[in-house]
């Protein structure tokens, strides 16, 4: 039995979507310029993008690069972050370096990396990897640092070796924080993906966006924005589901991704 | 409800409103508190509580955890409004917090962004007292609670006992008629706790404010109070009100050896044990 209140709560994001689309529709009708199509016009252009084979291949390639970059970052960043969290020397070794590269926009490395590695998948994947790694390192570091010392003592008393303690105590205890980092990383991967393609302008979702802009196909521009936005919302929601099942024992701290970089 | 009377009359069933004595400071009249839990279920935290507290009395509320004793204090503070019944202070129904009732919480609840002096001055400034006057008065109060020289410290730099001294000074500063103390010494170690009890008693014996004091320590309640209200759990009811007939000023060293003090402690502990059993059989 679903109460009307619970139903309203469940459908709130959907209502918000509809509300935002309505606001868009009204705004574009009020402004009434050719370069700002209405929401309905943009929605009508969505099937033509998703129906086009070339666009689909492009978007698919974008998503594949994102998935590879993100996976590599997860494999590399979580152990590094946890080690930094548990071993003081490792932390003071890496922290200043990370602080220096933190405010560098990773997608801005695109032109330089393209010089070295060409315009292919490798450059774009590398940029995504670089962009995603930092938040995951940072959150794993915080998570590893916050692990209760007494829990490790108990583990040692039970005869766990230091490597075992890392896998069987530190990793699960830090998991909620690590997953917060991964969620930020996921959003950031999408951002880096789109940006690098906007800068490299050779293929992918970001390229479709700017090609349409150059050719004054304004409804396609807005339709593509909707597709990327929907992808962001979908990936985030899917990740939340996964996280919910992985760390059921931990209270979800925030129901919205908090940090983006 | 079983009413046990020790030496003196029980106050649990207080006299009707019209016959209320002129010296009543707080009058709690058939107050109940129901909390919504998940879904449509609700939990009865307080059931039909009536209690009168005289002006200048030191009254403790004792009971097992979860008996709603803090909730009762919050109702008098005006922080929580009761589901049923009325609480009055000086004959006026309580509708919200006010500077006539000053709280002191177990968690200290000091403003972390203000230093010690700023915390104590806050209430006075809020009452429209001039800055210089408020500062002079606050310094004097801090001296009284033994914190001279700590005016510019921030709460985070103080120990738990010192924090609670600041919190007491902050509340005394705006001179409330009633002090509402919610397990104020519950988070302190035994030694600090004893010292603060002694100091509180000294301060209180000077100006005899009305004090409503929630605690789960029987010794503390007997040592400090004129009356001890013993509550039962789920739902919270007043089981008995015990008059503590011990001479004042009280000296801890003498009292601990006093057979009357010891008997009060033992008797009340028995009463509380009974309430525990009640709860199991209920």
């Amino acid at each position: 039995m679903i109460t009307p209140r619970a139903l309203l709560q469940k459908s709130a994001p959907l209502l918000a979507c509809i509300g935002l689309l309505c606001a868009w529709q009204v705004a574009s009708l009020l402004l009434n310029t050719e370069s700002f199509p209405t929401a309905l016009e943009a929605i009508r252009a969505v099937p033509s993008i998703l129906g086009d084979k070339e666009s689909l291949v492009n978007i698919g390639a974008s998503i594949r690069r994102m998935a590879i970059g993100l996976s590599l970052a997860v494999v590399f960043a979580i152990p590094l972050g946890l080690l930094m969290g548990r071993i003081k020397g490792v932390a003071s070794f890496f922290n200043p370096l990370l602080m220096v590269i933190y405010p560098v926009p990773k997608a801005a490395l695109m032109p330089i990396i393209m010089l070295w590695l060409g315009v292919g998948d490798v450059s774009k994947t590398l940029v995504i990897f670089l962009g995603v790694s930092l938040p995951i390192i940072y959150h794993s570091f915080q998570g590893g640092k916050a692990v209760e010392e007494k829990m490790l003592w108990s583990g040692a008393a039970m005869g766990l070796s230091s490597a075992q303690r890392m896998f069987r105590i530190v990793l699960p205890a830090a998991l909620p924080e690590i997953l917060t980092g991964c969620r930020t990383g996921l959003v950031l991967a999408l951002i880096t993906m789109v940006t690098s393609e906007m800068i490299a302008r050779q293929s992918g979702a970001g390229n479709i966006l700017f090609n349409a802009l150059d050719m004054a196909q304004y409804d396609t521009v807005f339709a593509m924005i909707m597709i990327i936005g929907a992808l962001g919302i979908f990936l985030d929601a899917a990740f939340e589901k996964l996280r919910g099942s992985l760390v059921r024992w931990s209270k979800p701290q925030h129901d919205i991704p908090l940090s983006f970089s | 409800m079983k009413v046990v009377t020790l030496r003196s009359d029980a106050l649990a069933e207080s006299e009707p409103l019209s016959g209320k004595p002129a010296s009543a400071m707080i009058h709690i009249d058939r107050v109940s508190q129901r909390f919504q839990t998940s879904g449509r279920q609700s939990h009865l935290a307080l059931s039909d509580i009536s209690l009168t507290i005289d002006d200048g009395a030191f009254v403790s509320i004792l009971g097992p955890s979860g008996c709603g004793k803090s909730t009762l204090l919050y109702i008098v503070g005006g922080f929580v409004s009761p589901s049923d019944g009325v609480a009055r202070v000086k004959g006026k129904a309580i509708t919200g917090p006010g500077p006539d009732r000053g709280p002191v919480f177990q968690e200290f609840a000091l403003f972390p962004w203000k230093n010690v002096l700023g915390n104590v001055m806050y209430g006075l400034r809020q009452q429209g007292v001039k800055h210089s006057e408020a500062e002079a008065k606050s310094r004097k109060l801090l001296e009284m609670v033994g914190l001279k020289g700590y005016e510019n410290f921030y709460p985070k730099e103080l120990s738990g006992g010192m924090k609670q001294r600041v919190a007491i000074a902050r509340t005394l500063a705006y001179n409330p008629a009633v002090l509402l103390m919610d397990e104020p010494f519950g988070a302190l170690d035994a030694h600090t706790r004893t010292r603060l009890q002694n100091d509180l008693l000294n301060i209180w014996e000077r100006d005899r404010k009305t004090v409503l004091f929630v605690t789960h320590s029987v010794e503390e309640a007997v040592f400090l109070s004129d009356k001890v209200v013993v509550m039962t759990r789920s739902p919270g009811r007043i089981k008995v009100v015990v008059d503590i007939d011990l001479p004042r000023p009280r000296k801890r060293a003498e009292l601990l050896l006093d057979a009357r003090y010891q008997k009060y402690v033992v008797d009340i502990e028995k009463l509380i044990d009974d309430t525990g059993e009640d709860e199991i059989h209920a």
Partner: protein
Amino acid sequence: MSATVNKALLGITPIALFIALWQSLISFGYAPVTLLPPPGAVFLRLGQQLFTSDFLHEIAATLFRLFAGFAIAVVLGVVIGLAAAISPAINAVVKPVVRVLAPIPKVALYPALLLILGFDHASKITLVAADALFPILLSTYYGASMVEQKLIWSAMAAGTPRAQILFKVVLPAAMPSILTGCRIGLVISCIVVFLAEMITSTDGLGHMLVQAARTFQTVDMFVPLITISMLGLILNSLLHGLRTYLLRGFPEV
């Protein structure tokens, strides 16, 4: 004392190693100078340019957009976050809208902003504000909704009217969380303003990088990158100083 020195030395090591590796790649002939300029040349160029009016003009353009966008994000984020924390009605509207908007990659909106607001400052400032807004809004909201009830009660008992509780208690108590959000927002602002300038602009540090890339001036490509990294570090430490001052009473997190 010597512990801090040790820590600092340990921290400088990887940066020094990084630069040494960079230099050795060139010295040992693994990387041609045209692709990877030696670090000395890059820092020399940076030093030469730092006081030329052209370069300062580019920095000023970038900083103007950065601050304008960041300031808008701070004001909107704090106001909306506080409002959502204290009013259930506003919360019911803000929460789902934020839930939908937060995970959208804002940079994808940039073409739309260009179309609506034009190619000048406005579109870039809006993009910066849109990106920095959400972390500030969310941390304000969480900070304000987690203010300890008893702080509010203490203030009310001391005679604070309900209307003043927001400014006298909730805002200062939520300050640590708000400033954390601002720190994240500031880094994002640095990143986004640079990217926006790279995608379309006629001035600014990002534009310098793209200009240099078009003409394969590798040294000039590194200069704006290092500059934005330095700017980020300086702004971050300024904010950190402000934070240390404002939160002097709060326990360390």
